[in-house]
C-alpha cells in the first residue's frame, strides 16, 4: 500500500508492522467487518418481516396456516442453528437453481440429480459461471442473509406473537366499539401498540443476531472469523510477512469488537425503549408520567 513497503524483507519494527497491517489481505480483513455489519443491517429487517409473517400465520383462524406458523416457530427451538446452517445453504442454492432450470431449459433431458451430483443446464447456474466474482460473492451473501433471516425470523415470530397477545384486550375492544373492521383493528391499533411489548424481546434477538455472525463462515462467506484464522495462522517465508501463530491476538481483537457492538447496542436500545414507553399503560410508561407530573 505504501511505497516503502515494496521490500517487506528489509523492514523492521514499526514500519514492518505498518506494512504488515496494510497488506491486501488485511484490507480484505477490514472489509469483512463491513460485510458483517451489512449482513446485520440487511438481516434484521428481513428477519422481522419473516417473523411478522410467522406471527400472523400462527394467529390465523385457518387451521393449516396456523399449523404452518406454529411449526415454523417451533422448529428453531428443537434444532441447533448451526445444524441448520450446515445443510440449509446447499439445499437453498440447489432449490433456486432447480427452479431457474425449470424455467430456462424445459427441453433439457439429462437427469438433474445424478447420484450425489447436482447438475442443471449451464444457463440455469445462479449466478452464471462466467459472471464476475463480485456476483458470486453477492449471491453467497444473499443466501447467507436468507438463511439467517429464516432462523431468526422464527425467533422474531415468537416475540411478535407474544407481543400481539400482550396488547390489552380493552384497547382492541374499544376499537371494535368504534366500528372498525377486524382488519382495521389489526392495522390501526394492534400493530402500533404491540411494539412496546415486543421491544425487549426484539432487543434480545438483535444481541443474539450479533453473536451468531461468527457462524457466517459456515455459510461460505469470507467473514471476520475466516480472515482472523487465515491471517493469524503461522506463516513460512512463502509469504511476504512470515510470523508465528498469532491467532490468539486476532481473536482477542474480535472479542473486543463484539463487546463494543454489544455495549453500543445496549445503549441505543435502552433509549428506544424509553421513547416507546412514553404514554403507554405499562409500568415504565407510568413511571414516566409520574416523573413529568
Amino acid at each position: 500500500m505504501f511505497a516503502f513497503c515494496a521490500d517487506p524483507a528489509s523492514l523492521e519494527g514499526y514500519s514492518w508492522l505498518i506494512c504488515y497491517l496494510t497488506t491486501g489481505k488485511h484490507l480484505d480483513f477490514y472489509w469483512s467487518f463491513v460485510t458483517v455489519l451489512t449482513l446485520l443491517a440487511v438481516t434484521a429487517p428481513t428477519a422481522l418481516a419473516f417473523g411478522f409473517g410467522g406471527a400472523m400465520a400462527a394467529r390465523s383462524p385457518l387451521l393449516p396456516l396456523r399449523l404452518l406458523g406454529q411449526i415454523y416457530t417451533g422448529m428453531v427451538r428443537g434444532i441447533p442453528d448451526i445444524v441448520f446452517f450446515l445443510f440449509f445453504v446447499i439445499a437453498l442454492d440447489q432449490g433456486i437453481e432447480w427452479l431457474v432450470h425449470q424455467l430456462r431449459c424445459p427441453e433439457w433431458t439429462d437427469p438433474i440429480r445424478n447420484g450425489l451430483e447436482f447438475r442443471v443446464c449451464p444457463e440455469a447456474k445462479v449466478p452464471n459461471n462466467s459472471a464476475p466474482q463480485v456476483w458470486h460473492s453477492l449471491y453467497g451473501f444473499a443466501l447467507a442473509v436468507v438463511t439467517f433471516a429464516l432462523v431468526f425470523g422464527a425467533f422474531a415470530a415468537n416475540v411478535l406473537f407474544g407481543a400481539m397477545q400482550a396488547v390489552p384486550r380493552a384497547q382492541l375492544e374499544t376499537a371494535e366499539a368504534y366500528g372498525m373492521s377486524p382488519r382495521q383493528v389489526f392495522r390501526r391499533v394492534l400493530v402500533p401498540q404491540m411494539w412496546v411489548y415486543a421491544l425487549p424481546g426484539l432487543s434480545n434477538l438483535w444481541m443474539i443476531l450479533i453473536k451468531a455472525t461468527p457462524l457466517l463462515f459456515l455459510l461460505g462467506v469470507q467473514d471476520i472469523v475466516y480472515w482472523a484464522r487465515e491471517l493469524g495462522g503461522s506463516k513460512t517465508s512463502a509469504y511476504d510477512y512470515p510470523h508465528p501463530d498469532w491467532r490468539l491476538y486476532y481473536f482477542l481483537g474480535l472479542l473486543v469488537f463484539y463487546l463494543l457492538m454489544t455495549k453500543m447496542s445496549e445503549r441505543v436500545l435502552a433509549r428506544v425503549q424509553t421513547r416507546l414507553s412514553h404514554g403507554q399503560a405499562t409500568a415504565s410508561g407510568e413511571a414516566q408520567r409520574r416523573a413529568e407530573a
Partner: protein
Amino acid sequence: MSCMEIIADYGLRSLGIGERLLPRSDFTLCHQFTLIGSGLIWNIYFGFLALVFGFFAANAIALAKSARSPWARKPAEWFIFVFRGSPLFIQFFLAYEALVLLPRAGFEIPLGFITVTLETSWLSKAWAGALIVLFLNTAAYSAEIFYGALRSIPKGDLEAADAYGLTGWAKFRRVQWPTMLRLAWPAYTNEAIFLFHATTLVFFSGFPAFRQQGDALYYASYFVDKTFNPFVPYPIVAFYFILLTLALIGLFGIINKRLNRHLPSNARAKFKLRPQIIR
C-alpha cells in the same frame, strides 16, 4: 452386518468403547444413527454438567450483582457482560488457545517438605476445557435471568416476610429464593435448551477430537466427509436434538409445576419461548 451388531460395536464409540476404527465403507442409515447417537452422549454430558454447576454459580453471581457493595457488584456485572456480550464460538476458541499455553509439565508447588505437581495438560482436552467454558457461559446467562427475577419479586411478598419477622438468611431461603426461582423458571428452561444446542459448537471450533471421539455433530460431519452427502447426517442430528429438547421441556415442566404448586391454577407462570439466550 445386522443393525444390532452395529449398535453393539459403535453404540459407545464416542467414549472409546467398542470398535476402534470408524466404519469406512458401506455406510448404512443404521451406522449413521448409531454413531451420531453415540456422539449425543457428549452433548448430554456437556449440557448436563454445565447446567448443574452453572445453576449454583448463577445464584451466587445474581446475588452479587444485586448487592449494594460495588466490590461484589462490579465484578459480577463485568463477568456477565463479557460472557453474554461475546459469541460462544470465540470464547471456545480463545479458551483453547489460552489453555494450551499452560506448561505441559504442570506447575511445581513447593510445600516445604513435599513438592506437589499440578497437572494442567487435561485442561486443554474438550471434556474439561469446553466444560469450563460452557459452565462459565451458562452461569453468566442464568445469573442475568436470576438477577432479573430477584428484582421483580413482588413488594408484598417481602413485606409479608418482614411482618413474619423473617430476616437475613431465613428470609432469603424461605421467601426470596423460591419466588425468584419460580419467576425465573420459564426463562431458565430456555437457557437450558439453548445450552444443549450450544454444545454442538465444542468440536466445531477450537477443541480437537481425540481418537475420533466426538459429539453428534462431529460424527455427522465425519459421515458427510465420507459419503459426500450432507442431506442425511445433519437431519439425523436435528432429529436427535428435537427429541432431546422435548425431553428437557418435559423435565423442566415437572419442576415448574412443583415450583408453582401453591398457586391457583390460573395464576401459574406459563412457559413461553423468550429467545434471549442463544449464543
